[in-house]
């Protein structure tokens, strides 16, 4: 059945790069190959959709608006920096190549999104696709957890990572889910989205992720802070908190209690050791780091392990013989791509947060752009959740971050075009020879 669906979907890709982008985002976030058996599990859907979309993008005459703003420029520089890191990797190999390809595909996707998603209609469907892709995992895991009364152990997802990464991904999607539930016109769709939102919370709890718990607290605090009606938000958050407190299994609370004793927690101290190793790699290769996930290579880990005592101002147990993941987006970027890569990565996210702030300021008193105001406020929350929970997770190459960077950049540009067109329309006649203004006017009318 899946093969039949794709037999329908792929030709549609060839008609419109916009539809291609939607499919590309879905495949990138869900990685449906890993859920399938038989010949479909070996079909490189991501690559096929990417090639089809790019081909149509270059040859078709449909609406597109390529541009370069601060976020996209930083992203371009980040891609260049990561390319140098990959070329000079300490332990080149197939897994290094795969990770580099994943990153570059994510960045190319971000540029395509910024070029193609030129209207509110397209942005709305892009957000919907993100929620549908991640909602699959939320609904599946949440329902199984409820049906087994908490007896189901959530291990994570092949496309996203372990249980901690899954919790972070779902927490990032919850604000987008909330946006859609608010702005979808059909009641049944709104109900479905609220159910998905609830099941996302169930799944986050049932991952038993302590990072997920911290993420939930951050999400709750910022949902109240960024809300238009703070009292109502406080009531909703309090109700959700009470339900989770009453329904969560005892083992979840036992797991959370271990946060208080981080110094004696092997899992946490193992992460600190991995952070130290990433720091050592970055110190030895400050500009471009050791290459994609170099810290996870036995040869690199073994080479830097003897230098660990130089960082003993933070007491940690002796490093394991076997390598560990970086377990932090910051140390992951630092070890993999050096100080240059880390700075560009943080600068790109800071620029996206600045875009959100600009959108909020521009649309505060524009009722026709209230959707952009809400989307920007909620996207800010997604980024904050990522920046805080990502501090203890290796999620620097997670596609959703690059999709969100493109989404906020595009939304900022669309808002500016709409406002420019409104002002021009109110202030005088439209210059029929000004293609930018005609384009902006078309955006406003849509």
């Amino acid at each position, binding site marked *: 059945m899946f093969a039949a669906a794709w037999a329908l979907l792929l030709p*549609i890709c060839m008609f419109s790069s916009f539809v291609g982008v939607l499919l590309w985002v879905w495949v990138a976030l869900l990685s449906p190959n890993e859920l399938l058996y038989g010949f479909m599990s070996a079909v490189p859907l991501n690559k096929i959709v990417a090639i089809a979309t790019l081909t149509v993008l270059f040859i078709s005459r449909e609406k597109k608006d390529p541009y370069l703003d601060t976020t996209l420029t930083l992203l371009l520089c980040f891609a260049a920096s990561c390319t140098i890191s990959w070329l000079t990797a300490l332990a080149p190999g197939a897994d290094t190549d795969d990770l580099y390809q994943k990153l570059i595909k994510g960045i190319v996707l971000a540029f395509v999104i910024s070029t193609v998603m030129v209207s509110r209609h397209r942005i709305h469907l892009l957000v919907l696709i993100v929620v549908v892709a991640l909602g699959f995992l939320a609904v599946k895991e949440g329902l199984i957890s409820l049906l087994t009364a908490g007896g189901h152990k959530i291990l994570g997802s092949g496309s996203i990572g372990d249980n901690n990464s899954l919790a972070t991904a779902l927490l990032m999607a919850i604000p987008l889910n909330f946006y859609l539930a608010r702005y979808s016109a059909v009641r049944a769709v709104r109900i479905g989205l609220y159910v998905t939102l609830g099941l996302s919370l169930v799944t986050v709890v049932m991952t038993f992720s302590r990072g997920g718990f911290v993420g939930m607290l951050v999400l709750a605090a910022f949902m109240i802070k960024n809300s238009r009606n703070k009292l109502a938000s406080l009531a909703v958050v309090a109700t959700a908190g009470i339900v989770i407190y009453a329904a969560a299994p005892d083992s979840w609370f036992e797991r959370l209690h271990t946060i208080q004793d981080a110094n004696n927690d092997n899992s946490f101290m193992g992460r600190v050791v991995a952070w130290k190793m990433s720091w050592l790699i970055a110190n030895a290769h400050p500009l471009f780091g050791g290459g994609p996930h170099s810290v996870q290579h036995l040869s690199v880990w073994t080479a830097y392990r003897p230098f660990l005592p130089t960082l003993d101002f933070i007491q940690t147990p002796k490093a394991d013989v076997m390598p560990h993941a970086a377990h932090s987006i910051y140390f992951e970027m630092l070890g993999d791509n050096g100080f240059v890569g880390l700075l560009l990565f943080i600068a790109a996210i800071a620029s996206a947060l600045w875009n959100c702030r600009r959108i909020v300021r521009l649309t505060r008193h524009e009722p026709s752009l209230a*959707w952009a105001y*809400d989307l920007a406020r909620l996207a800010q929350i997604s980024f904050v959740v990522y920046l805080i929970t990502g501090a203890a997770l290796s999620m620097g190459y997670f596609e959703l971050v690059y999709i969100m960077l493109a989404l906020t950049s595009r939304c900022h540009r669309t808002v500016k075009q709409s406002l420019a067109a409104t002002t021009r329309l*109110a202030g005088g006649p439209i210059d029929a020879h000004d293609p930018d203004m005609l384009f902006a006017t078309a955006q406003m009318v849509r």
Partner: protein
Amino acid sequence: MEALTLVFDTLVILIVVYQGLRDDRRAPAAGLFRYRDVASPEETKAPAPQETDFAGARL
């Protein structure tokens, strides 16, 4: 459960893609996943509209 959810997810994607392609060429959108405008509290706080001349230009 996984198979059922994947089938449902794929169906949703088919509808979204169909609607995306159809509604992209017309406004307002009319499909299952169309958006709506929500009245915001800020609307009541919005500054009074500037006075305009007959041509609509701001004075």
